[in-house]
């Protein structure tokens, strides 16, 4: 466990998330329109923020591998894609629960949620690709290529869904954010970022260990 600084970072983040969630559930004021479900903000927004970071980290890792051909970049990409899929699924579940309360339907074609769902599908495809390629270098190069194309595609997904649904949606209203809400949100966002660092660094080390094993054989 020597030199595993990410354990401390993760522990701090985890505690912060626990505290922030408790505050969000009990202390923070109720939101005017969304009543109790407004509390989903404190876990949904940080998770969304985290997903964006992870997808972008995968993109950066992919570019890094293609340009520099250093294995650390491939491990970053692999770690970020996996964590991104997990958190993207969570995001969709949270959004679905909220949609069920608000509109009595299990899915809302909100452009952001839909973009996340499409990204999760794209990244699942990339995880499948990784498992179907045996040669490590080809695996790194091809998944890097697929990740870059998937990431570049995100603005189009968002734009198309937004335009398509804007013909059917009502007017958007802006929720008022109480300053107390803002504080809890900030706490959870910072906490979740620390947890993300723990996830990626740990998964990076696992990928590194697997790689060493593959090359030793």
């Amino acid at each position, binding site marked *: 466990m020597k030199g595993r600084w990410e354990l401390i970072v993760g522990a701090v983040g985890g505690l912060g998330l626990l505290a922030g969630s408790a505050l969000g559930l009990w202390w923070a004021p109720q939101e005017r329109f969304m009543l109790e*479900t407004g509390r989903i903000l404190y876990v949904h927004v940080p998770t969304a923020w985290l997903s964006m970071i992870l997808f972008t980290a995968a993109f950066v890792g992919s570019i890094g591998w293609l340009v520099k051909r250093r294995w650390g970049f491939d491990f970053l990409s692999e770690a970020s894609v996996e964590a991104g899929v*997990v958190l993207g699924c969570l995001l969709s*579940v949270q959004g679905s*629960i909220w949609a069920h*309360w*608000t509109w009595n339907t299990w899915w809302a074609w*909100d452009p952001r949620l839909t973009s996340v769902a499409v990204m999760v599908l794209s990244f699942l495809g990339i995880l499948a690709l990784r498992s179907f390629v045996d040669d490590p270098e080809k695996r790194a190069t091809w998944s890097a290529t697929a990740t870059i194309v998937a990431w570049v595609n995100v603005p189009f997904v968002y734009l198309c869904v937004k335009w398509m649904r804007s013909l059917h949606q*009502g007017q958007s*209203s802006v929720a008022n954010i109480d300053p107390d809400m803002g504080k809890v949100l900030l706490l959870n966002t910072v906490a979740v970022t620390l947890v993300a660092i723990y996830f990626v660094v740990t998964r990076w080390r696992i990928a590194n260990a697997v790689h060493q094993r593959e090359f030793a054989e």
Partner: protein
Amino acid sequence: MTLLSLSAAFAQGMPAMHTDDGTSHMVWAYVATAVVYLGYTVFLVVRGHQEKV
């Protein structure tokens, strides 16, 4: 894109159809969140042991 605008984006103007104040839905949402974060942590710890990280 600020944190506030991210959070504000989830309030949409369609007529709401809720019948309660949403507490049970919130419990489920937080439980799902805890399960996923904890579950993935456990997965990483187990995998880490397997690979002797």
